[in-house]
């Protein structure tokens, strides 16, 4: 029976061997923290730019889980991460108030833009008023692609619809398309069907499948997009790596981290604007 090993057995043996090796390699790793963050910071390439600097300084690996802000906050609330870095200030403050996080700090900002097809059926291009533009889109029932995933961007978008006085629930499935997915997938959908969409500028600049889409609305102070950072509460979750997590937050908020954020450029454009410690200054556009 032993004279011919079946391929099945070979595969099984190989794989079982791999399982047994796996924990060994895991142990030999550097100290690391898990950061629950958003797709915009990841997809734009910001993390790839700043994390190596942090690692060089401290030896700490930062493992980024990039999901929507809503999902990131939920994961952090479950204790599945050491640091939360997202962009939905109200939700973040609620998270801290409920004991999920220690304290919230402003880190940086960028802004949202509204993108749309060149044909511009709602005739809103080059405008500055986000609410008015959305109203026009609703009036002509031009297709609009929404994240619909409870992300920071989605929360912001809903705020702007409210400001425009449009009830999008009624339009959902009609001209209002809720994709229930990430920023990239939503932009792919918008590009595919010539729809308008709200996106953060960083994702937009880094996005490669723009197709017929272009920026139609930018510069409205209300389109301000603030990112905050929070240490997950170690009193609630004993597994939180306080020392390493705090080191990352301190670095981000300090001169080195802020400079690192400032120095990140794509196509010659700065994508994120550090504003740590400027809590009391007026909100810029």
């Amino acid at each position: 029976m032993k004279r011919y090993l079946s391929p099945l057995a070979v595969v099984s043996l190989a794989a079982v061997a791999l399982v047994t090796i796996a924990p060994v390699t895991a142990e030999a790793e550097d100290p690391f923290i898990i950061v629950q963050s958003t797709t915009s910071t990841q997809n734009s390439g910001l993390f790839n730019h700043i994390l190596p600097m942090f690692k060089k300084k401290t030896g700490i690996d930062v493992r980024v889980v990039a999901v929507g802000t809503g999902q990131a906050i939920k994961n952090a609330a479950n204790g599945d991460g050491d640091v939360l870095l997202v962009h939905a200030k109200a939700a973040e403050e609620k998270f801290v108030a409920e004991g999920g996080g220690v304290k919230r700090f402003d880190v940086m900002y960028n802004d949202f833009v509204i993108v749309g097809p060149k044909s511009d059926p709602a005739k809103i291009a080059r405008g500055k008023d986000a609410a008015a533009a959305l109203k026009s889109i609703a009036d002509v029932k031009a297709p609009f692609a929404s994240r619909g995933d409870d992300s920071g961007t989605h929360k912001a978008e809903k705020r702007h619809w409210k400001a425009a006085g449009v009830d999008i629930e009624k339009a959902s499935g009609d001209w209002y398309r809720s994709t229930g997915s990430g920023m990239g997938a939503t932009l792919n959908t918008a590009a595919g069907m010539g729809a308008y969409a709200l996106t953060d500028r960083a994702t937009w600049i880094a996005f490669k499948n723009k197709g017929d889409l272009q920026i139609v609305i930018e510069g409205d102070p209300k389109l301000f997009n603030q990112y905050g950072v929070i240490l997950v509460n170690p009193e609630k979750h004993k597994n939180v790596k306080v020392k390493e997590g705090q080191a990352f937050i301190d670095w981000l908020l300090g001169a080195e981290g802020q400079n690192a954020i400032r120095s990140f450029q794509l196509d010659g454009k700065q994508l994120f604007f550090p504003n740590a410690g400027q809590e009391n200054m007026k909100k810029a556009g």
Partner: protein
Amino acid sequence: MSDSGSIFSLALGLVLSGDAELWSIIALSLRVSLTAVALACLIGLPLGAFLAVVKFPGRDAVVALLNAFMGLPPVVVGLFVYLALSRSGPLGVLGLLYTPTAMIIAQTILVTPLIAALARQSMADLHVEYDELFRSLGLSMSRTIAALIWDGRYSLSTAALAGFGRAIAEVGAVIIVGGNIEHVTRVMTTAIALETSKGDLALAMALGLILITLALFVNSAVLTLNRTARRLAYA
């Protein structure tokens, strides 16, 4: 956007450039999926054989359940494993979330019903043939199951391959429990999802092409091995 020709050359370029990151992603994909399939075989083959051999009340219901689970959406499995492995979940203390081990667990759960259901089918056919002999020999249940698995090994390797196909192509479960963390839990499918979300459809397609080639390679390797072994050992 690139046409298919440039996607192909992009894929080829990626492979030939010996890009360390690409290779580590490929290696992790293989490690996770092959391990999951091996574990799923370890559970699924005996389970399938058991269901083929042993009559008990409710067996049909179990088989129906198994068949239904063959089509389990990966996201549901991912969510289930996330809830179990989350720090707030029952197995949170193990600290397995966002590790390759978590991905292996999720894919094992995903693939076991498929392998068990396919195994049950081919084991049932073989069992019809062997049943009287085994009863005449007074074979124990465990030896019956072992003998069916061994003698059915070539048809069972098809079940294992089907499981591998499902595992290696799956993104919904591994992205939830692995987190698609660069250098740690990023595999082919989550890398494809990431590139798609960056709008880099050409790169995503190229990675997809590499994934298909990989699956093709594993499949033909197993089939060739199988054929030679069968020719040498068995008819």
